[in-house]
Structure formats: C-alpha cells, structure tokens
C-alpha cells in the first residue's frame, strides 16, 4: 500500500539522516503545525477572531524568554566546563534556545487569560468619531510628540 510505504520511508529517513538535518526539518514542521498560533497581529480573512496575546501575557512571555535564555546559557556553560566538553555546552544551549522558542514565541492560550475586549462593530457605529477641536488636538499631539522624542 502507498500509505504504509510512505510511513516506512519516513521512518527510514529519520534513522538514516544526520542529526542536524533532522532537527531543521522537524523544527520547520513544528512551526508549520503551530502556524495558527502565530497569527497575532495579522487578520486571517477566513476567521472572525484570531488567536493573540493580551497585555499580561505579553509581559509574561518577554520575562519568560529572558529568564529561560539566561538560565540555559548559564547551565550550558557550567555543565560544559565541568564535563570539559565544548560540544556538550553547545548542545545544551541550542536545546535551551529551541525550548524557549517553543514556549515563548507562539500565542499559546495561557498567555491569553485576560483577553482584550474589543468593541463590537455595530456598537462602534453608534459612537461616531469624536470631533476634536483644532486647539486641543494640536496641543495634545504636540505634547505627545515631544514625549515620544
């Protein structure tokens, strides 16, 4: 059967090819399967809503990323120094980076526990765009522009 042959071929490929090739292909496959979780700021036309993070989740993700990366670097250096193996240090660090990427980069649901409440489009129409007077708008935009600098 074609299906069974294909599965057998995939298993044979996994055993025969080198570790680096395997890792790259598996990571690309992982990214493609988690693709819906990356659609943070872009709107997919097929969906009404898209999976994203909230403010608390974003802060948490940034903090987790920094902590995980520094810890994996320290652990990698320490173990490599103790074991006197440079390659071991590189492998541990690479594993730490991949783990951090897996946890931090996609928009996992646990980053979205305080979701943002967006206004319903029908509600937005009931409140028309406010007509800001020229004096207040120019002063507030000037204030904001100077603060941004």
């Amino acid at each position, binding site marked *: 059967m074609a299906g069974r042959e294909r599965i057998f071929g995939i298993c044979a490929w996994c055993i025969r090819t080198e570790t680096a090739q395997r890792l790259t292909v598996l990571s690309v496959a992982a990214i493609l399967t988690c693709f819906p979780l990356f659609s943070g700021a872009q709107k997919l036309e097929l969906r009404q809503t898209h999976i994203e993070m909230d403010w608390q989740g974003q802060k948490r993700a940034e903090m987790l990323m920094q902590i995980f990366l520094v810890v994996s670097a320290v652990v990698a250096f320490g173990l490599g120094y103790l074991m006197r193996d*440079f390659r071991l240090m590189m492998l541990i660090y690479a594993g730490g980076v991949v783990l951090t990427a897996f946890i931090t*980069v996609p928009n996992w649901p646990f980053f979205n526990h305080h979701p943002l409440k967006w206004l319903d489009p029908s509600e937005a129409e009931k409140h028309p765009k406010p007509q800001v007077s020229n004096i207040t708008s120019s002063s507030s935009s000037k204030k904001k522009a100077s603060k941004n600098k």
Partner: protein
Amino acid sequence: MIHAEVVDRIGLMGLTLTSREREEREMHSAVQRANALATIAAILLATICAAASFLDAFNSPSLQAHVQVVKINRFRRQLDGNDEVKMTLKMSMDLTSLFTWNTKQVFVFLAAEYETDTNSLNQVSLWDHIVQEKDHASFQVKVPTKYPLIDQGTNLRGKKVGLVLHWHIMPISGRMIQGKMPLSDFSLPDSYTTRS
C-alpha cells in the same frame, strides 16, 4: 492629529488605560518575539564563547620535551649556492597540559635557530605535527626531518644550532596562543659530508 484620534477610539472600545499607559504600551506579534529571541540568543552565545575563551588564559601549561639529533644524513652545498642539511631526529614530548576543553588542535613544530653574519637570528622549521586529540599528545618519534635545513648562504659549516620547540594552540573559540621552549643544541660538522 492621528494619534489623538486613535487614542480616543481605544478609549471608546472599553479599555481602561490612562493616556500615559496608552503611549508606553504596544502590542507586538509573534514574529517580533521571534526576532527578539534570536537577537538575545545570539548575544548570549557570544557571551558564553567569550567566557570559555577567557578561562583559557588561566591554563599554565607545563610540558616536557626532549630532542636528540641521531645523525646528519646529508650536509652539502646546493647548486644555487645554499647550504643544505638533512638529519634524523629522535623526539619525545608530552603536550597534554596544553589541551583544555576549548582546544581544537595544537600545531607543534621544531625550529633550528642560529646566528650568521648577515642575520642575527635564523629560524628554519625542521619538522611539524598537528595534534587534534589530547590522547595523542604524548608521543616519541625517531624520524628524518620533514624539511631540510637550508641556509641563506654558506654559513653552516661548524655552526652551533639550537633547537627550539614552538607550539600554536588553536582554540574552538578565541585567540590563538603561541609558546616556545628551547631544547638542546648541536653543532654541525666543519666540512660537507656525503651521503653516509
């Protein structure tokens, strides 16, 4: 103008943020997070490689080596006027203390050093070897010289030549470390010899 409108619009949408918070916060996407991760990972990688290289400086090597000239195979004057010496050397050395966890290979060569009227120092490499594993770093060889000792001129008759062992430690990350150790001297014969 545009910023004020956006700020007011967000206020209508039910988010209770003060105006200061509105300016400081900004939602980012997964791609931006991946970019930040790649940058921080690269910086930390450079840091751990630099730390590994830095710790190499505290390694004070203590190696032993001994060389002895077994015989002079040929000592003649070449057709273009330069002296040429080929000899057999018996060497034993222990380079294991040069290797750290951050060492890729050690290049070791034996140089013959002598002084002439025109040059205050002549250095000619007689033999070299690349050691890639710590296990292979201690060895004894009795071997004819890989490269002949060729002079710039005809100054070698009766010359006192010193043998110096040089090594270059090539680390996996960091700067190459050089070192040398003078070994025994020997004197060349006073006249040219034919092949014995």
